[in-house]
């Protein structure tokens, strides 16, 4: 292979290897902290566990609660998805924002009702 071709090949490899940086540069977020997201947390009160634990492990708590509720009929406040929704009222700004950000698709609200803020707004306007 001659030198010119070799340079092109190296360039192609460089592009592939640096693609995460390139993609970010093209999207125009280079050098800014626009990548970090803010969660809208409820102002008041305590959750069933502390914030750090909930961030990392809420899915386990929900799954355990789900099994206990469905299979054993344990319907206490701490095991209730509806009880979560009394404080965390905004699905878009609480659930979806993180899940979309890290690419996780929970199936909870395909069946359980948790209005998105759009639905909430429509319902208010409707009334």
């Amino acid at each position, binding site marked *: 292979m001659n030198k010119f071709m070799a340079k092109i090949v190296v360039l192609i490899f460089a592009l592939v290897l640096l693609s995460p940086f390139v993609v970010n540069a093209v999207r125009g977020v280079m050098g800014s902290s626009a990548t970090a997201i803010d969660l809208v947390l409820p102002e008041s009160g305590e959750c069933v566990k502390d914030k750090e634990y909930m961030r990392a492990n809420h899915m386990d708590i929900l799954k355990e609660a*789900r099994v206990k509720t*469905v*299979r*054993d*009929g344990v*319907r206490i406040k701490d095991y209730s998805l509806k009880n979560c929704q009394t404080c965390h009222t905004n699905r878009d700004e609480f659930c979806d924002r993180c899940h979309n950000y890290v690419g996780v698709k929970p*199936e909870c609200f395909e*069946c359980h*009702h948790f*209005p998105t803020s759009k639905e909430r707004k429509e319902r208010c306007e409707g009334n």
Partner: protein
Amino acid sequence: MERRDFLKLGGIVAAAGAVAPASSLLYASKVESKNGNKYGMVIDLTKCDGCGECVSACRTANNVATFPDEKINNHLLRIAHVKSKFPNSQEQAIPLMCMHCDNPPCVHVCPVKASFVRKDGIVLIDKHRCIGCRYCMVACPYKARSFVFKHHEGSSNPEVPKTMHGVVEKCEFCVSRVDHGQLPVCVETCKKGVMSFGNLNDKDSQVSRLITSGRVHRVREDLHLGAKVYYLGL
């Protein structure tokens, strides 16, 4: 006895020992309740005129998948009109639902234990686990189960989850209402007092008194499934 025969005998005994626990799986198991409750229902057909109010209340309260095509439309509770083959015989309206058997075939066939009998005797589907194979629908003698054939909104009652496309739903005695000390929707809706719901293990409960008061029947008692929905005047 020679050594050879002894070994043979030992083998047979060992094989029998291995088979015995397995064979116990094939026999029916008794439903044991932890807190002593065993829920059941008594339907007094002499009072039922088949108005269908319980059915529509059930549909709304449980977000039942409703489609215009009757073949895929789901039913948790339905009213059957039954008539004997004698001439001039009276047509009888019979509310039908999941009979919450003690030995439910649907639970026996479920490959993932998504269908199960709760400790208080209510037969439930864990819809988080159901794989949608529909074996339970084939196995149920009462046609109590429906498959959700397509996505549906089903948000008539936000308090209760709907059932997603691809899994099976059925009557669950409105289990979340029961757990909160309320009656199932159909029982509460019926003004004529056709249905009564309660604890079968409690001698003084209304259902127990009704069962001992007269001739109660269950649908297809010949199958020995131990259904917990009893009919008066069937």
